[in-house]
């Protein structure tokens, strides 16, 4: 018997492991709970080392980049300033379109899912296996990260949280073969499912062969899977070939660089709400340009400190959503755009940006406190001849905005 002792032990251990596998495969949904302890132990043993190493690496990198390696920074700064100027003007132009779209959405009682809160996290480790495309981040349940939360970068979608531990979480990447993301093609509006392959590529499935898909077309999330918010960039179509069955073989290039992830954002809160149509002060590209021209100085402080006159809404039309306005008259709603525009106006007016920059949902508190919504507009804006002064228009929650539109 002792002759076969080692072989018996081998068979016994293999049998136990096969049995364990069978149980996990049978109860796919409950497998996570049954193996949680061993995963927790391993992750607890490995992630502190990874965190420490990433921390040291970032510290050294930061010292090198911020204090030593500053070659070409002046030139880059100059170029970035030019870029900001150009983007600022473009933003004002694009915000007209956004405003118009929001008005139409409000008219249709359209509700969107907004990204309400995100948590920034550092990627500290991987699964260590080519067959499991997942990474570990340094934020867990203590930071509000939970299972099935979407993970993105500035470039695009990364994946979703698969397991959340106390101070770390495992993120399943979109190029893993067990992942699946509901997507929509940006131009053709065709819907499909993004999946990973065994070799780590990303493919778009469930698009019929008779549909027209062109390489280079952008792919965004559809929001249909209730995990990923709608409209997040996933990637672009790289190659389209007819498949063996009724569907096309579409290879996708992910927007986010999944093999070189460093920092990600976890979407910890989403909100369903109707688009806020905040009618703010009209700011045009020409206004921004004219504000930079030499102008008459501000009034003395005494004049400014006078109590603001009660805001009486101008006799504006009750419903603003009538027809698309001409570009030169449309208001600015995009908060980023209006804040950029307000910043551009700051030196000439000497006032802080108006509270109307914020979405309608954040406005009532300030209005209730008696502060006029259009503070910038309450003071006459001194502008160069030929420019259009910022007109006084009611705040977002005042009569005449989209909130009062009977649906």
């Amino acid at each position, binding site marked *: 018997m002792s002759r076969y*002792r*080692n072989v018996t*032990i*081998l068979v016994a*251990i*293999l049998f136990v*492991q*096969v049995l*364990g*596998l*069978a149980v*996990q*495969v049978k109860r796919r949904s409950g*497998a996570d709970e049954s*193996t949680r302890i*061993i*995963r927790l*132990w*391993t*992750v607890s*043993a*490995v992630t502190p*080392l*990874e965190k420490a*190493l990433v921390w040291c690496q970032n510290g050294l990198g930061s010292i090198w980049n911020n204090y030593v390696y500053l070659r070409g920074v002046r030139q880059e700064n100059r170029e970035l300033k030019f870029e900001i100027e150009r983007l600022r003007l473009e933003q004002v132009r694009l915000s007209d379109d956004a405003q118009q779209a929001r008005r139409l959405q409000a008219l249709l009682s359209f509700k969107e899912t907004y990204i309400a809160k995100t948590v920034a996290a550092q*990627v*500290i*480790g*991987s*699964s*260590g*296996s*080519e*067959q*499991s495309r*997942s*990474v*570990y981040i340094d934020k867990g349940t203590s930071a509000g990260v939970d299972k099935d939360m979407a993970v993105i970068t500035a470039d695009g979608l990364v994946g979703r949280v*698969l*397991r959340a531990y106390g101070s770390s979480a*495992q993120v*399943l990447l979109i190029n*893993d*073969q*067990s992942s699946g993301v509901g997507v929509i093609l940006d131009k053709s509006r065709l819907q499909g499912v993004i999946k990973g*392959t*065994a*070799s780590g590529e990303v493919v778009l499935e469930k698009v019929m062969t008779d549909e027209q898909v062109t390489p280079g077309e952008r792919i965004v999330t559809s929001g249909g899977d209730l995990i990923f918010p709608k409209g997040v960039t996933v990637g672009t179509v790289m190659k389209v070939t007819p498949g063996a069955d009724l569907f096309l073989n579409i290879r996708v290039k992910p927007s986010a660089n999944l*093999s*070189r*992830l460093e920092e990600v954002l976890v979407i910890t809160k989403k909100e369903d709400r109707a688009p806020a149509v905040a009618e703010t002060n009209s700011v045009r590209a020409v206004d921004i340009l004219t504000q930079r021209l030499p102008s008459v100085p501000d009034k003395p402080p005494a004049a400014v400190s006078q109590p603001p006159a009660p805001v009486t809404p101008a006799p504006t039309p009750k419903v603003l959503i009538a027809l698309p306005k001409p570009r030169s008259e449309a208001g600015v709603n995009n908060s980023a755009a209006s804040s950029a525009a307000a910043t551009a106006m700051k030196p000439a007016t000497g006032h802080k940006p108006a509270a109307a920059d914020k979405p309608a949902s954040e406005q009532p508190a300030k209005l209730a406190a008696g502060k006029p919504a259009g503070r910038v507009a309450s003071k006459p804006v001194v502008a160069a001849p030929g420019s259009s002064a910022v007109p006084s228009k009611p705040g977002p929650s005042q009569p005449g905005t989209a909130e009062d539109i009977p649906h």
Partner: protein
Amino acid sequence: MPITYTSQEQVEVYRFSAPAAILIPLVALFLQAFLPLRLHFFSLFDLPLLVVIFFAVARRSQVSGLVTGSLIGLLQDSLTHQPIGIYGIANTVVGFGASSLGAKLDVENVGARFLVTLFFYAVHEVVYFTVARGLVKLTLQWSWGHEIGGALINAATAAVLFTLLDRFKQRA
């Protein structure tokens, strides 16, 4: 007395101190999880497997080899999102096989270590793919080029790594 095909009259059996036995596998796991993020080519390496082979060959005990392989494999599994046991089974088989071979052959020189690692890397991959496809129904692609490349790289690494790990050996 078992027949041994070695260059010496008696094969030497080694043991390891408790800190070395615990820390070496943990460091291997840590490097395996950490380095592929910075050095993408590192995903070709399988450091935990190399550690299993090293411990199994040095200890020359089948039970010790299969238990070491089983534990390291299960830890490796727990870092992935797949069911626990796939790496466990593959490393158990490798641990048992390597310790059996270590008891019969002298695998102390670089050339023998290279060949042993090459062989057991192939065994590991075959068992892993069989279990993953047959039991867990994972869709895996077998690429000869990738597997041969992986085997050669890991075998070359083992030749260097085992020399470093020899410092932790203690005569039993």
